[in-house]
């Protein structure tokens, strides 16, 4: 295996953006029949390296080598011709086209200049079977959940029968079951001699699937070695360059006090007539497979989608907030999962994003008070360790820093209830720790924190209480010692668990 020649290599590649170096002389070699892990915190340069390998970007210096030959003028088209396929972290599907059309897009079989749908469906059916896609092939992608779309994305890459397959955080939106299918698939491909590059923030997946690892830190390779004999701690040490200690803050001894949220017969979107409550001082986790109503529960409580309840008490009010402004006025804030589309105004500066909810409050005589605003912004940036110039557009920030901005903007209104949807998705470990600590402090200060998460360890170690949703209903409510990965996953999958009070 190791004496084979690498299919795809980057040799001493450099790449910068606007004079800001991102990759500083990186080497990586992908061999056939090996699953290679690429690790690194956000902003370490992983995405840039993938873009170089797939021809989407050109290196400033250094070269891309395919089958031992320098690639020369390398473009996405020549990468495809060389059998290199990428499953993007950002979904690149066309919502209105069908599953089959999306998978075949750009490589349609033709007959008399028209798309040959019969041949297309035959080819597509094969790859769909491989990835476990059972939906009808002519179904529009718009009707699929996020996890299923990711699966289509994987099928699309496979349709081209790649020799090199690059997977950029493919499991971040997949359910446990879908992730399992993907893992089996990767093993099959590996045994068939495909070279795989796997990027993930989930270390247990990396350990289970990969045999070799390249670690990036600040645009340099800090580790390039076999994975055998390295445990999770060791991997984290390679990534952050020091001992990590515990990721999760200890639970506080203080008992939760007054009830802040109490709803009965609550329905919103996919959520059907559930009862839910939360008290000041606790962190309540909402778990379940992807798309079981977790997001709709938060949005309904936030007044962002229509919701109804037979009985509702939300911080001294006797009804649900009817719109977002009413929720904000009642001290409820929401941090969405999709930072780029829902959480932040990307082209605008850090400062304008942070100040957006506080604009009206800080204005005097109808005019904005610039000095009060910049004071507040500087304060929040310091408090949340958002580094650098606050005049930069947020799209220039790493995922972790973007998430801090999305959180920071709510602090000035002193919220009593925080609703967070997957706040650590695509966030590096160091920032994760900061966010966990911040959330725990919020709870200790007497706020109610409700967090929906697809990351089960997060629910287990961070939350005081976990509500598992399944098909829009409460499948289990776990407390204290009853919270375990097994109990959460079991309830999410519909497996009967002893000791779980439904």
């Amino acid at each position, binding site marked *: 295996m190791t004496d084979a020649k690498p299919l795809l290599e980057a040799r001493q590649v450099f790449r910068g953006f606007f004079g800001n170096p991102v990759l500083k002389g990186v080497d990586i070699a992908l061999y056939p029949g090996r699953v290679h892990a690429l690790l690194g915190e956000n902003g370490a340069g992983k995405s840039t390296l993938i873009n170089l390998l797939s021809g989407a970007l050109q290196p400033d210096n250094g070269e891309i080598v395919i089958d031992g030959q320098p690639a020369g003028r390398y473009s996405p088209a020549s990468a495809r011709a060389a059998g290199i396929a990428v499953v993007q972290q950002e979904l690149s599907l066309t919502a209105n086209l069908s599953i089959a059309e999306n998978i075949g897009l750009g490589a349609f079989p033709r007959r008399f200049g028209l798309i040959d749908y019969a041949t297309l469906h035959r080819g597509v059916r094969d790859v769909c079977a491989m990835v476990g896609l059972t939906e009808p092939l002519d179904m529009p992608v718009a009707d699929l959940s996020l996890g299923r779309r990711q699966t289509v994305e994987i099928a699309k890459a496979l349709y081209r029968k790649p020799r090199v397959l690059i997977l950029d955080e493919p499991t971040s939106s997949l359910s446990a079951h879908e992730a399992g299918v993907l893992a089996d698939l990767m093993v099959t491909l590996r045994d068939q001699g495909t070279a795989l590059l796997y990027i993930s923030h989930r270390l247990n997946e990396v350990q289970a699937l990969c045999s070799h690892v390249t670690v990036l830190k600040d645009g340099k390779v800090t580790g390039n070695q076999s994975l055998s004999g390295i445990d999770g701690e060791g991997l984290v040490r390679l990534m952050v360059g020091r001992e990590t200690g515990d990721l999760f803050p200890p639970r506080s001894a203080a008992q939760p006090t007054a009830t802040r949220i109490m709803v009965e017969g609550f329905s919103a979107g996919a959520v059907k007539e559930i009862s839910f409550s939360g008290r000041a001082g606790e962190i309540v986790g909402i778990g379940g497979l992807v798309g079981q109503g977790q997001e709709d529960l938060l949005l309904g409580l936030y007044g962002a989608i229509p919701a109804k309840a037979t009985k509702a008490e939300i911080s001294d009010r006797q009804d649900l907030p009817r719109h*977002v402004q009413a929720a904000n006025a009642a001290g409820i804030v929401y941090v*969405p999962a999709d930072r780029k*589309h829902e959480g*932040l*105004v*990307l*082209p605008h500066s850090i400062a304008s994003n942070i100040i957006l909810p506080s604009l009206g409050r800080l*204005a005097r005589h*109808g*005019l904005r008070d610039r000095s009060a605003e910049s004071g507040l912004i500087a304060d929040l940036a310091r408090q949340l360790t958002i580094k650098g110039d606050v005049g930069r557009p947020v799209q220039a920030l790493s995922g972790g820093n973007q998430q801090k901005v999305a959180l920071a903007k709510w602090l000035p209104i002193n919220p009593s209830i925080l609703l967070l949807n997957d706040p650590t998705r695509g966030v590096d470990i160091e920032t994760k720790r900061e966010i966990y600590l911040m959330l725990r402090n919020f709870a200790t200060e007497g706020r109610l924190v409700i967090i929906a998460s697809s990351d089960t360890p997060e629910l287990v170690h961070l939350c005081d209480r976990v509500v598992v949703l399944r098909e829009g209903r409460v499948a289990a409510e776990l407390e204290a010692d009853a919270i375990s990965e097994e109990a959460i996953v079991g309830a999410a999958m519909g497996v009967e668990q002893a000791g779980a009070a439904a």
Partner: protein
Amino acid sequence: MNIVRSIFRNPPLLTLTLVVAVWVIASLTLRGFGNYGHLRYLLELASVIGIAAAGQTLVVLMGGIDLSVGAIITVTAILLPLISPAWDPTGLVGIALALVIATCIGLFNGAGAAFLRVPPIIMTLAMATFLQGLLVIVAGGSAVTVSNPAVILLGQSRPFGIPAGILLWAVVSIFVLVLIHRMPIGARFLAIGANPLAARLSGVSLTRNTLLLYSLSGLFAGIAGVLVLGMNRQGYVGIGDPYLLTSIAAVVLGGTSILGGRGTYAGTIPGAILLVTTTALITVVNASPGWRSIMFGGLILSLLLISGRETRR
């Protein structure tokens, strides 16, 4: 070199530089162009476009477009003489009534966009068509002559030698610039323009701001209508038509992103002047109306290409 680059990076400054360059070159080469009287006349013409484009700038910043600007100008210019009450010697009541009507038309546009979820481009186009039909019925195709003293004063008087229209434009400019850059609502418009979903989840009310936005656009179109009427002394069906495309062109020339979320009225001001200047130059070289339109289109396209402003999104 650095100065040149920073000018190219800053669309309002680029447009302003272009206006100054065109004025200087034309003054040196064309007899009579550089006269104070001629330049003042150009600014006076630009003031109508500039005021109509004030509302358009706000709408485009928030990611919409208002195709009823021309129709609202016409409505104001035709209805004002008809509704000015005879018992009011100043004529201010008539102006106020006309502006209220213009604002209400805008509010209607906003309501359609906010409550019925009709895309602004369709809503305002339908409104324009509707108003045009209504005007043909009301005015019957004949011109209406204005006798309202305040309107005539606005169109004809020159305090300190400066036409009142230019002064009105200056007041509107200051108000709009303050609104965009110094008032919370300006920041909210921009946030909605760049990402409506994120803005809504951040507690910015889409409904309220949409209503306000289109009302403002209607109001500014109404003000432009009053000014046009004063300058022409007559209102007729079609009087506002030239101002629809020029208002959008002035916004785009000024570097405001047609996709919303980025831009400023500071660019629209030189944009409006540039449009009027180009028209004047084309008239001087005796080009036919066909060529005039072709040159307009070419100018807008080339300016967009020079600054490459839409590529970096």
